[in-house]
């Protein structure tokens, strides 16, 4: 329970360039720098998908990077949020229809926040990430709800211990 309350405040970011022009990537780097300082939200750039909560993707998906994109997404633990940074990550942008590109990352992985612009400004990225924080919180709650299952609230006269709940929900799960 305590772990979840901390995660709400400090999500870790994973950045992947799926074939973009570097423009949005350097703006993400600028976000990590002192002027925009995304770390004041408790965020830190991590290179490991298994430790990260938010996936920042830039670039239209090229045919060679799409497997890696899906692989990275699959390796991230739930709950996870995907942000597509820039016009070409959201829709394909100017690269839409080129022979080695697909139109946007949402054809392969579910996207929660779209950040527009070519290139995205750091303010927009920060806005998108802050929106993603809300979504992450919501997703965390949904995950926790499924553990408690659709059990009605315990009133004082009828206290149940965990084993009793487990026995009751066993038929529901199977």
């Amino acid at each position: 329970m305590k772990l979840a309350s901390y995660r709400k405040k400090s999500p870790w970011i994973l950045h992947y360039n799926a074939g973009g022009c570097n423009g949005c990537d350097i703006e993400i780097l600028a976000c990590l720098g002192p002027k925009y300082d995304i770390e004041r939200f408790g965020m830190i750039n991590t290179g490991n998908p298994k430790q990260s909560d938010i996936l920042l993707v830039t670039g239209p998906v090229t045919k060679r990077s799409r497997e890696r994109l899906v692989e990275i997404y699959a390796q991230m633990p739930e709950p996870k949020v995907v942000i597509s940074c820039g016009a070409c990550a959201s829709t394909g942008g100017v690269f839409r229809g080129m022979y080695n590109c697909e139109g946007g990352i949402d054809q392969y992985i579910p996207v929660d926040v779209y950040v527009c612009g070519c290139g995205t400004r750091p303010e927009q990225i920060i806005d998108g990430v802050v929106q993603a924080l809300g979504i992450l919180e919501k997703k965390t709650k949904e995950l926790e709800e499924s553990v408690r299952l659709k059990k009605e609230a315990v009133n004082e006269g009828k206290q149940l211990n965990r084993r009793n709940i487990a026995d009751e929900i066993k038929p529901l799960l199977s």
Partner: protein
Amino acid sequence: MAKQYEIPIGAQHISLLEPLHFKFTTENEKIVNTEANVFYVHRGIEQACVTKFKFRQVSFVVGRVCGLCSISHSTAYSQVAEKLLKIDIPIRAKYLRMLVIELDRIHSHLLCLSHVAENSGFEALFMKTMQYREFSMELLEAVCGNRIQYDFAIVGGVSRDLKPEVGQTILKRLKTFMPQLEEIVDIFKTNWTLSLKNKGAGIINKEMVYRLNAVGPFARAAGVPIDVRNETEDLLPWKEVGFEVVTETSGDVYARNLVRLKELYVSIRIIENIINGLPESALITETKAFPEGEATVRLEAPRGELFYYAKGNKTQVLERLKIKAPTFSNVAAMRAAFEGNEYASAPAIIASYDPCLSCTAR
């Protein structure tokens, strides 16, 4: 013979901005062989430029080849298209193009230096350099209207004028930047901890540069004065605005850092000269001609020589467009420079190459 291990870096890695894959063969922590895999971001821009887009739109498309040196790409394309159209652009447009190229070089070099510092494990210097870099992004926004992807150079001239008050702002900000730059130079030169990581790492010598066709700061750090700004005068008057070649001799990461830092001084001088002596003229040459024939253009991007070839056939759409980016020339030398180094210094060496793979793969 000791046992050999293969260690991969990439395609996704914290020290890489872009998908780039290196496979190192190591023996007792020393790199003995490297495989580079750089074409993850191939998008097919060249083909789209000759089928989907008209020749006037292409200058905006090729800007999206690379976000770091987008002005170099759009300028080089505009120049090659102007050669095909057989027009000459106004003198003010030439100077404004040079101004934005040099501002872009400042931000690109500072980004590279901060990246080297981060990958060498010097987080504080990364933060400091990124902080000092922001002024160049703000100036670029003031001049072009966007922090990255300027769309400044178009076929026939430039898209925006430089207002006098913006010029004065640039001069003022450059003055405040000078002591900051000296501070960074001092750290890069004299910091003992950084020198342990940077001095003697990733050495490439003069002979290897000639043999492997390296370009840009990579070659200049080894003592080879290759610079397109020094060689061509016909399209942009570089020597008029006070350009001179910067070289170092040792060819390691430290030398590459110093070349970039010294080039910042040259860029600042060029920008000051341009703003102080900006000639008055129109901004764009209008023409209704269509591109015809073949032409090539070379331009010094922040990473080295950028080469454009175009062929027109008197229609709205070009027949062929070929882009050769500086990093593409450097890949062979990049592989060679890893040899004999500790594996632990590989990230710093990669960052010091300043690889731009979206240029390479297009």
